[in-house]
């Protein structure tokens, strides 16, 4: 089990040979969570100020310094061109676009994410309007589980509401992060790389998301059967 709730150090049995600086080093869990939070807020940003705040939160001790940004307005325009609109978007930040035969939202992957949150007793407040498989929401769910495991708060609550068992959360991680997110996020990042017009900011956000995913994927129980290769509409990555 990757996340020993109390006695063992966090992520103690990540497979040997994991890259230096990943979540298995002593200081790493905090950085892993902070990186995830920053990325969540980055891809969920509704304006330039929140985009900038989220990006600056990627400045972490275990990461290279952030690139200088000449004009945040330009980054906001680019962000909207790539991920938001109003024009055709090159890099839609939704799982179903990459996992299903048609390039569309609200597919099976959306319901999959919704059910994954429901399994945790969580739901998106924007259910039905923001597709549940938006990268920001998926990161949010993953971070909640990571935090619960790391904090070891998996006992029974004072009110008697059953709290999730660590074992189950690890299995959730396997299914959702190592299974589902690892199946589409690389395709998303590939689309970002191929989008042409990009910037140091977008490139760094993409690199950090790739790193977060690389850190995240091995953290689960290793017990869940996964597709051999991530599968996307555009082909295997």
């Amino acid at each position, binding site marked *: 089990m990757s996340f020993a709730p109390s006695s063992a150090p966090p992520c103690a049995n990540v497979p040997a040979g994991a890259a230096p600086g990943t979540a298995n080093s002593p200081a790493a869990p905090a950085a892993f969570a902070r990186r*995830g*939070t920053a990325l*969540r*807020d980055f891809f969920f940003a*509704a*304006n330039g100020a929140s985009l900038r705040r989220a990006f600056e939160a990627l400045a972490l001790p275990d990461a290279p310094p952030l690139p200088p940004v000449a004009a945040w*307005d*330009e980054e906001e*325009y680019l962000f*909207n*061109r790539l991920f*938001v*609109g*109003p*024009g*055709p978007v090159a890099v839609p930040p939704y799982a179903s676009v990459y996992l*299903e*035969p048609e*390039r*569309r*939202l*609200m597919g*099976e992957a959306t*319901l*999959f994410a*919704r059910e*994954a*949150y*429901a*399994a*945790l*007793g*969580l*739901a*998106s*407040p924007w*259910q*039905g*309007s*923001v*597709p549940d498989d938006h990268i920001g929401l998926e990161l949010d*769910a993953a*971070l*909640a589980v990571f935090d619960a495991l790391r*904090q070891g*708060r998996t006992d029974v*609550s004072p009110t008697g*509401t059953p*709290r999730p*068992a660590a074992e*189950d959360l690890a299995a*959730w991680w396997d*299914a959702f992060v190592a*299974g*589902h997110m690892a*199946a589409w996020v690389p395709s998303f990042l590939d689309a970002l790389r191929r989008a042409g017009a990009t910037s140091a900011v977008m490139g760094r956000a993409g690199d950090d998301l790739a790193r977060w995913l690389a850190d995240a994927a091995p953290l689960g129980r290793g017990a869940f059967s996964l*597709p051999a290769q991530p*599968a*996307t*509409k555009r082909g295997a990555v």
Partner: protein
Amino acid sequence: MNKTDRAARGCDNARRFFLKGTAALGTLGALGALGSGPCGLLRPAQAAPLKGGGYAGGYAVHRQVCPRNCYDTCMMLSHVKDGRVEFVEGDPACTFTGGGLCVKGNAYVGSAYSPDRIKYPMEQQGRGTGKWKRLSWDEAIDKIARKIVECKQKDGSLLGVGLNRLSGHQGVTPNVADGMFASMGHITRLVGTPCWPAGIDAQSYDMGKMLADDPEEMPESRYVILWGGNPAYCSIHSMKYVYAARERGAKILCIDPVFTQTAAKADEYWQIRTGTDGALALGMCRHILDKGLADQRWLAANAHGYDEFVAYLRDSVTVEWASQETGIPADKIRAVAEEFATAKPATIWMGYGLQRHTNGGATIRNIDALCAMTGNIGVTGGGARYGSLLNYVFSGAHGAFQPPAGSVGVPVTAPDGSVKHGRRTLNINKMAEMLLTADNPPVRLLWVTGCNPVSQIFDHQKMLKALARMEMTVVVDLFFNQTVEQADIVLPVTTLFEEWNANAGYWHRWVGINEKSIEPLHEAKCQVDIAKLLTARLNQLSPGFSTFPADADPRALLMAECGQAMKDHFGIASMDDLLKSPAKARKPGPAWSDGKYLTPSGKYEFKSDICAKHGFNALPVYVPGRKPFGPLRVLTPHAKFGLHSQFINLDWMEDFNPEPLVYIHPETAAARSIRDGDMVEVKARTGATRLRARLTSNMPRDHILLYEAWFRNNAYNCQNLVDEESADMGAWKTGAPGVAIHDQFADVARI
């Protein structure tokens, strides 16, 4: 294992895991980790996920009506589960739609769930720059409201506010855009339509109103002429009635300059010289006259001015002349005239392309006369079919709002000397010219909804100049397009699945309700809610600015559209009845079967004094078309994979229709060293556009054809090649004449 299988397998395994594990996992919400902790977006689940209704597969089934501007106005069913539309189908309760949809209707789920939809209110920092920032609805509405208030302060009226609304979003609900502005004062409205106005006026001169026969009765016809239309592309549900007529022995003749899909399915095809259709109809009339085949009994009961028409035919029309004008051999004209006159009942379906000419209204009158003199009006299986206003019996609740007392607009002095104020109207078919020249005040703020004028309205280069003159342009739309490109603010609007609406056919005789079957995606809003937001802000900024009801409810407004006229017409007790089934107009039989024409004489008017009063000929005489001003005539008709500029941008359509093409006859191409697949430039007086050539002998040698379209990743715009020349008629019934879309000329060269 292919990629889809893999994705499905991974997904299914994990879904089973989550569904099974829900109870075991307990709830992270109980951990108190929300808000301040890592879980910054998700919240404790309040309720079970939405499920479907009691239908097979757990679907909730909702009634929808296609809101696009189409003959077929399809009644549809959406199948919803987990708050998500999974698929649509034609509503089998509507015999016209008959359970089937066209390629566009079947694309609606992909359209609503396209990642390219406009998702949020956004503001462009410099038109055409592509530099967009998101706005909250409050921010967007505030900016617009302040501009509207500023217009009133500057001008003392709201004439500086322009509304450009067209048929891109049909039904009753979109009318609320008019109601919203009417509640504020007298604004400037782009009026008219590029679609069918010349023909409406023509049929109104002849019969008093445009009323087409029920297409579901077409199988009764013994002879069908499909003239200047392409229902195999544009009204696929009608084709089954054409085929049914043929199975019962009818002959199908298609007359068109282009060998269309419809022509390919006909028994006989005539490639007529474009714009000379009136001469062909009159040549047939003359031959019918000479052969004594006119229906004297019908004429005695129904005709006004027939003797004058006969005199005109004898004086001015011969079959040989008609043959020379049209390029159709005289013996064929004679043969078909005799067949048509004797095959009772016989019908002609006149496509809208026929009247998109400088002589378009006159042409429709010529063809109407052919139907009339053969006694084919008012009889089942007959009919001069063009379009129908029969079903437009809604109460108008969405638009019925009055400006605040004392609102200033365009003053009109009544005969009694009193002065009333009204809106300013500008001809939508000359929108570019009108917006460039409107003054005192100029149009400062343009609100565009349900249309994409930059792709659809004429003289593209002039249009860009005109829009540059706007102080603020707001576009309400589903998708980014060439008009949004020129906008300052864009507002996301709901799809048919996300709003209440009702729509009635202008071809068939059905009406249907459109249920709100899912919540709006992203931050899209229905137009009633947009009107409420804007009104509330205006009234905050300037109390009493608008009379629009603050508590307007989209569903209640829809119900109010069903007044007594609609109840009687469709035999329903209320709009709610349509939730059970779409309804068909109760009036049986063909148009004008009662012989009571709505003309001044009460008869079918071969001779129309109103027409003469409006500056045209009283008789349906031949009017020659526009003189060519370039080597090749340019046709820009409707495409198969789109409706005007909609649908073509969907990747589902792009699989079949990935780029614009210009269709050229091989000999025409060879003379210009153009091979199939070459990139070419089509150049006209008004502008040029570049695209790939497709060679086909379906085209006349002196024509080229480019479908009207908007592609999401292509700058193609056929309005570079179409000028603002008016059609003859249309101003009477629609407020502005039609437009001579098919009287355009250009040349093409390889690049």
